[in-house]
């Protein structure tokens, strides 16, 4: 580590932050040196988001100070932090999809191209082109943002953050908040290469749930737990096990995916697809799903696996081929039809499609099966309370009460409510679309355990995951898709799981 740069770019010194009832940050000190990539890891609720919001000027610390290049400073708000050289690349992509790339890059900063209220678009687009070349992305700044794929949009966000160079007086610090969550492996490689290449221009703080990526990209890693920094590690000296141990206070065990609980599935075929196709999305897909089986589908964006999962959940009717559920041929044109025949969908967009956030836990749990709660046209409120209470107990959903709005639950507990909804509706087939996205390690483990438990009872699962590791770890059987077709099939029995390398070759 001789080449490690030492000049400080940004530091937090003994920062404390409290919210009503929560001590969010406890005496946190971190230092970001010039040209360094800092990894920031911790479970949900560890204080990462609060820390990022302080660094980006959204919150102000209760005590402690912020220093830029060793000089004490204060961020009045996000715009002020921007002016002082703090850029942010958001988890939720923040580009406005109906504007062009160039308009997005200079959104709110058009003044430099404006005379007498008229924008000189030619100058703006020329400047945008220069920004895009910094991140080496081949995108026409006159394209609309919604014509770009997620990877390109992420690059545009990075280019946008780099425009701060033009007016910030000092070295930039760019906060990368879960930038890889919607990217596939090849795209992540490109992003990481760009970040490394930009180290001469900026320092980075990289927040991610994916520990392997944090290890890969970072120079140093801060580990947070319960609002405090519990470790400051040189990435080269760390590994996933030590990080995991520091984050949760226990080590990652071999049975992370509950492989010992993986029981052989049953003979009974609950779902069968035969030469199923949907336009350009996927074609000639055939497989059988058995009761108690977890079928993992691997593939990059564009492989068609997402659309296939949406078809099975009733969102995107297939255009040809056969889909049989419980030996009956069906053509699902709405989720209502899928729900009627026992298919439940656990979406990646948990807060949008999974839950009605502004309804209580109880109402969410019973939402998919109110028919069976209705007596003489009226909802049986007592039975509803009883059911909801029993699901909260069985799935160990941590909520103050069954009347609490789902909005106020943590991500892991929200996901358990979604699961409870489908178990309550007696779904026989669950479509798990990125079921652990945005969950911390502890919450993931609980989800894995529940998925194992329901399959033991004969529920069949179709799984599309963020990581190959999770797909392989959980599944009984694996399908790999590429360009809309199945390119590889494999068994994944405990102790004989295929490796990630085995699958990647068939994905790209």
């Amino acid at each position: 580590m001789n080449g490690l740069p030492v000049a400080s770019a940004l530091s937090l010194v003994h920062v404390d932050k409290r919210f009503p009832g929560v001590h969010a940050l406890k005496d946190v000190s971190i230092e970001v040196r010039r040209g360094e990539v800092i990894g920031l890891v911790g479970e949900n609720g560890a204080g990462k988001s609060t820390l990022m919001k302080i660094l980006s000027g959204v919150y102000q610390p209760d005590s402690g100070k912020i220093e830029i290049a060793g000089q004490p400073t204060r961020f009045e708000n996000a715009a002020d932090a921007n002016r002082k050289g703090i850029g942010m690349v958001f988890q939720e992509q923040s580009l406005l999809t109906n504007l062009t790339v160039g308009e997005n890059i200079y959104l709110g900063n058009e003044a430099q191209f404006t005379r007498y209220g008229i924008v000189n678009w030619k100058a703006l687009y020329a400047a945008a082109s220069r920004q895009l070349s910094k991140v080496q992305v081949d995108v026409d700044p006159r394209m609309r943002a919604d014509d770009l794929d997620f990877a390109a949009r992420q690059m545009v966000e990075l280019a946008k953050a780099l425009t701060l160079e033009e007016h910030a007086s000092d070295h930039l610090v760019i906060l990368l908040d879960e930038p890889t969550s919607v990217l596939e492996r090849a795209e992540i490689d490109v992003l990481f290469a760009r970040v490394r290449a930009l180290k001469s221009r900026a320092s980075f703080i990289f927040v991610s749930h994916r520990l392997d990526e944090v290890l890969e990209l970072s120079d140093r890693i801060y580990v947070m737990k319960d609002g405090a920094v519990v470790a400051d590690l040189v990435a080269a000296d760390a590994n996933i096990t030590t990080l995991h141990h520091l984050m949760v206070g226990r080590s990652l065990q071999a049975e992370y995916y509950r492989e010992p609980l993986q029981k052989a599935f049953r003979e009974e075929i609950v779902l069968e697809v035969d030469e199923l196709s949907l336009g350009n999305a996927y074609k000639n897909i055939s497989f059988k799903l058995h009761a108690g089986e977890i079928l993992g589908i691997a593939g990059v964006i564009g492989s068609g696996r997402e659309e296939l999962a949406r078809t099975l959940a009733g969102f995107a009717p297939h255009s040809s081929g056969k889909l049989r559920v419980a030996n009956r041929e069906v053509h699902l044109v709405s989720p209502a039809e899928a729900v009627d025949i026992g298919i439940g969908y656990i979406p990646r967009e948990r807060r949008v499609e999974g839950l009605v956030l502004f309804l209580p836990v109880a109402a969410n749990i019973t939402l998919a099966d109110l028919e069976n709660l209705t007596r003489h046209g009226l909802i049986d409120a007592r039975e509803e309370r009883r059911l909801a209470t029993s699901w909260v107990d069985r799935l160990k959903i941590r909520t103050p009460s069954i009347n609490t709005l789902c909005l106020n639950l943590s991500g892991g507990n929200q996901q358990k409510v979604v699961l409870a909804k489908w178990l309550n509706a007696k779904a026989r087939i669950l479509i798990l679309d990125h079921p652990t996205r945005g969950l911390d390690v502890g919450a993931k483990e609980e989800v894995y355990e529940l998925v194992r438990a329901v399959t033991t009872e004969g529920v069949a699962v179709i799984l599309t995951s963020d990581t190959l590791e999770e797909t392989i770890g959980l599944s009984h059987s694996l399908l790999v898709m590429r360009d809309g077709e199945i390119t590889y099939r494999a068994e994944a029995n405990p102790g004989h799981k295929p490796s990630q390398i085995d699958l990647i070759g068939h994905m790209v």
Partner: protein
Amino acid sequence: MQNIFARLGPDKLRQWLPLATLVILVAVVGVMQPVFLELSTLLQLASDTAVLFILATGVTFVIMLGGIDLSIQSMASLASVIVALTVARYGYGAFVLAVAVGALAGLLSGLAHVRLKVPSFIATLAMGGVLFSTALVSSKERSITLGDVDRNYQTWVTGTVFGVPNVIIIGLIVLAIAHTLQAHTRFGRYSAAIGAGEPAAYASGVKVDRQKVFAYVLSATFAALAGVILAGRLASGSPTLAAELLLPSIAAVVVGGTAITGGVGSIWRTLVGALIISVVRIGMTFLGVNIFAQNIVFGAVLIAAVAITIDRSKIPIVK
């Protein structure tokens, strides 16, 4: 956790604010004019509130879903015209006809909204225009006074039972039916779910379009019922009979604490809201405010109520 702690206080406050407002208003007007608190005045107040409450109740179902129905006052006026034109020939059948036309109009608005994907405020604004013109043309642009024989058919509206005006009893029946629908049936629950999070409701297998169409049918049906009652009380039918009622109706829903964005609300709140509007109206009369200036107050009240009932920390962007 911070959410729970930060929101518990204001949320509880927000919930009880409408009822507290009503009690305070009644007390204030009562102190200024003790006659206001006499039984006969209160019965008069309740009778006057009934039509407004029924209109507001119908539109509550639509607002719960996150939509709006701007056709209710035209629907109510058209219903009064239908009654005035046909009661001589069909007797009680005239009321059934008027309410059936309401159901049909609601069905058409609902279908235009969900099938043609026209935003509800446009679909119902357009439907309101159609209904208003229909009323104008069929009444030959005049107010039709009911004859003495026709008025015999109106006693179910104008009569009393043990001194209680029938119109109050009708209002209470509407309250019971609407409250049951909203609080104890699948339709009510689905409406709240759709209003609060339509994609999640859809993904959970809720037949969203069907619920929406039903809400518009209810809204227009209740509006027609309100028009029928208004015709009975005023002994006439006219294309402008309910012309000043749209603003107070929507104000009643929102003042009661039902969120204009949908998902949160109840029929009880609409009752409280309708009573607040009535008390304010009577209070203004006592204070000598010009009757034609009242919508200035209701407009201001509506904006204030929406501003108070929306928790801005939950809804960052309003269009």
